[in-house]
């Protein structure tokens, strides 16, 4: 265990300010609400602007056209996620960055040149299948493959031109980059509790692809998929902490403004203690998320444990914080007009996506017990 300094660098502070003012200016909540009825849930021009600021480039190496602020791209990207959480921003943050990172790390030059410029500029939205629900068989020679199965939950699946899908076969796990207009691919848009983040089901009905679609090595995608999943979970945690932080801010304001029996609501001890607990949940969520991001970046042997711990804790306490804020707001908190439900939708999505708290705890138990065996 080495001592790690969490203090943000000056570059990171500056970037946070830039990201925040961009989002506040270009995608305030009124704008986000106006995007609810769009099929994509966001504005393509806005996403290109976001990409220009760097929302898609931190996990991409400099030679591939990306680059980080601090030398720790995932730390930088957490800032984006947290700021987007503060304003429940839409947009394909998770799939764009997960795929960009994967392509930057493992792609051939041709693949990189085909995909990265579009993702980095925001013109191209990639999809990412988090599960392993597709089977692959080698078709005759070993240069062609047939994919068969259904990816049940693909973020931006209906917005993407190309998706990264992991398939299981006799050789092991292999990742493929598949155009969604390939013959045999069916895209079914889904509905979600979040009103602007979009998901789809992708069915692969004997989709034929060749070796140029393989990302990385055939049969060896296990560690890559694991890393992608951990990155996705950490980003969700960070987005949730951003939402928690903003909700706590406006709840504090509201309780200072409201009077009961001639006293501000914020002077009632019970409500003060609720807020103290919420502050604790927020800071603990931030702390464990930051630790987890470090461990994922450094690929330490505690990385999965820290990510699962963060996902379980932040998932549970993110929703609990926002529900407590609803309680503190009273009736107004369950109206359509008030923004609280937008936050509740987002943290509730993040809590369940890619594993529920109970599933994370089960996995933590497994890892703890495994350690006993080996120690």
């Amino acid at each position, binding site marked *: 265990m080495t001592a790690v300094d969490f203090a943000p660098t000056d570059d990171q502070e500056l970037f946070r300010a830039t990201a925040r003012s961009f989002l506040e200016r270009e995608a305030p909540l009124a704008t986000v609400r106006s995007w609810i009825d769009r099929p994509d849930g966001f504005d393509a021009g806005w996403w290109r602007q976001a990409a220009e600021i760097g929302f898609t480039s931190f996990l991409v190496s400099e030679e591939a056209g990306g680059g980080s602020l601090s030398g720790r791209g995932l730390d930088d990207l957490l800032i984006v996620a947290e700021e987007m959480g503060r304003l429940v921003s839409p947009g394909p943050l998770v799939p764009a960055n997960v795929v960009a990172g994967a392509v930057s790390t493992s792609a051939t030059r041709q693949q990189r040149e085909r995909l990265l410029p579009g993702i980095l500029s925001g013109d191209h939205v990639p999809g990412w299948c988090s599960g392993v629900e597709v089977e692959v068989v080698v078709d005759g020679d070993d240069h062609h493959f047939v994919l068969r199965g259904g990816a049940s*939950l693909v973020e931006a699946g209906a917005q993407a031109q190309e998706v990264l899908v992991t398939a299981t076969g006799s050789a092991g796990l292999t990742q493929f980059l598949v155009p969604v207009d390939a013959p045999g691919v069916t895209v*079914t*848009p*889904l*509905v*979600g*509790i*979040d009103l602007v983040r979009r*998901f789809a*089901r992708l069915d692969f009905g004997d989709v034929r692809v060749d070796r140029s679609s393989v990302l990385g090595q055939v049969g060896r995608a296990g560690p890559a998929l694991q890393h992608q999943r951990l990155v996705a979970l950490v980003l969700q945690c960070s987005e949730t902490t951003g939402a928690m932080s903003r909700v706590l801010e406006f709840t504090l304001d509201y309780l200072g*403004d*409201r*009077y*009961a*029996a*001639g*006293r501000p*609501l914020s002077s*009632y001890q*019970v*409500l003060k203690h609720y807020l103290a607990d919420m502050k604790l949940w927020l800071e603990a969520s931030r702390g464990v998320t930051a630790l987890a991001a470090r461990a994922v970046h450094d690929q330490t042997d505690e990385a999965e444990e820290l990510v699962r711990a963060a996902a379980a804790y932040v998932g549970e306490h993110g929703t609990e914080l926002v*529900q407590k804020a*609803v*309680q503190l707001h*009273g*009736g107004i*908190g*369950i*109206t*359509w*007009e008030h923004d609280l*439900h937008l936050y*509740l*939708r987002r943290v*509730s*999505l993040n*809590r*369940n*996506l*890619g*594993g*529920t708290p*109970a*599933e994370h705890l*089960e996995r933590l138990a497994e890892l703890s017990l495994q350690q006993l065996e080996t120690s």
Partner: protein
Amino acid sequence: MSPPEEQRESVEQFARRSGEWLAANMPRLTSEPVHERRDDIWDRQRELQRMLWDGGFAGICVPRDYGGLGLPVEYQRAFTAESLPYELPFYLGTPTFSIILATLLDFGTHEQKLAHVPGILRGDTIWVQFLSEPSGGSDLAACLTRADRREDTWVLNGAKIWSSAAEACDFALCLARTNWDVPKHRGLSVFILDLRAPGVTIEPITQVNGNHTFCQEFFDDVVLPLDALLGEVDQGWTVTTALLTHEREGVGGSSPYVSGRNLLAPGSTVRTNPAAVLARSLGIADDPVARQLVGEQRMSDLVQRGLVERVSVGVRTGSLPPSAAALLKLYTAGASVRRTEIAATLAGEGGVVWSPGDVETQERADKYLIRQADSISGGTSEIQRNIISERVLGLPRELAADRDVPYREVRQSSRARTD
């Protein structure tokens, strides 16, 4: 005015007769209670209540002078026990019967009761209470709606909010300030308000789930006759306190005026475990972690049933004060949070993203977004804990900065201040 005890049929005889009549006259419930979103829900309630009236089973505990049967509460309980398999006017239970009818019987003059109670029992009128205000939050006595005496009338001005389904109602009990020169609780009065009176505007509030369960109302020089006053002038807080106790009874399931299962406290009457149904339909009925939640749901429902009995008997025998109904309200609110949370947890990832047209999952998600509703409406859980600690346990009252201060001098929420 009730029949002398020796002439009454016994509870058992009454139960038997009720059972036969219900079987012959009332529709059987198919599986789940009637759906809340049906358009004709309120006409249906009036119709069902009229059937009870015509059958001689309306107002079992209401005095005979006002159209009821004048029987003790055991008869009402026996009727409800028999009625569980049937559709009854569930949505009239609270507020019309458990809250409004009870309060009218407590405070109405003989003339007011004659004028309004039979109409309620016949299903002719549906009622609502107007208490909360946009500025007031949980502090109902922080009432800015005013009723000013003008010759032989009262003139009502102001706004109310969080009234249940006011659009569908005919009458309301409305709390208004009639004296601004005395401290908060001492200058209030309660009025019977005809919702078709000129100057009354009712607007539905869109909830997170798209429903319009609650309304907001505006009063613009609404003229009320003098006999619209319920109870004494400036004594409206006494009426309101009784009304709120009846509300807690209604929500908790211990009201003597409600027939049929209690939709607000389902655990106390329903036997099917909703978490078991959900776990089975999700295919996780064998998962031990899911089963803990299924078991918790059943436990919660059964404990609620025990608490309802305990509080009802306690209040009746005097071992608990009437304000102990706050225990029921607090329990019900917490149980509702857990019920929603359990369903969301069982659903997991499939509960936050779903196929278009999957109405059940959609409704479960919507419900999760208003998980706190039962902990807010009708008095927050924090208010219930204040009541329990102060009135049931006798602990010191919260400091009130507005005690003994003329109400016009009290500081209000910033959005409501007129300066």
